[in-house]
């Protein structure tokens, strides 16, 4: 059972455009929602994260929008650049007896064309 559903699977955006990746979850016990960026041959790296009591978080060109009632959250990349081409994973954490584990979406391969 997939607990975090991510779409689209792949995305092509022109340089300067806005990239939008969406995620949805079912488990209301999730308490933290990070996004990870992964370049080929590298491990995922934390990009930006949000807590469920906040509706939006912005860091530079990256913004997370969070809709708690709809159980959805999305990543927006403004002014997308070729260097943003990577795989993006949304994730959610649930706390179990004092620790948390990350549940990941299946990822979105983003290609920003020059």
């Amino acid at each position, binding site marked *: 059972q997939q607990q975090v559903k*991510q779409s689209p*699977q792949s995305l092509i955006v022109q340089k300067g455009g806005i990239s939008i990746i969406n995620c949805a979850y079912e488990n209301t016990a999730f*308490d*933290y929602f990070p996004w*990870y960026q992964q370049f080929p*041959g*590298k*491990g*995922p*790296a*934390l990009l930006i994260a949000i*807590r469920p009591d906040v509706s939006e978080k912005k860091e530079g060109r990256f913004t997370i929008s969070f809709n708690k009632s709809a159980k959805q959250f999305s990543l927006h990349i403004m002014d997308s650049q070729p260097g943003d081409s990577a795989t993006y*994973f949304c994730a959610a*954490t649930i*706390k*179990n*007896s*004092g*620790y*948390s*584990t*990350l*549940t*990941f*979406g*299946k*990822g979105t391969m983003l290609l920003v064309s020059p």
Partner: protein
Amino acid sequence: GAGVSQSPSNKVTEKGKDVELRCDPISGHTALYWYRQSLGQGLEFLIYFQGNSAPDKSGLPSDRFSAERTGGSVSTLTIQRTQQEDSAVYLCASSKQGGLAGNTIYFGEGSWLTVV
């Protein structure tokens, strides 16, 4: 080193052989995680260590998979009698504490396992 270190970076093994994958977390990080990344399947949680103990082994896919962590530092993931479906990238990650909310988790570059 400054980051999570994994070895080997690439491993090709014959079906039925045992393999060991090693993870050296960031110094001082008490929490250690193993994930598996298969093509098109995202990242699948395998096991979590807090210090040397593993309170959550729920993600290990079969009894052919085992992991240990000694001295609260290095961890080894062992796959016995490897099968072709074990081919994947095995990622190790660490964080300062087990409670991830607000705690950054750092991933290594992974060990790419191919079973032929």
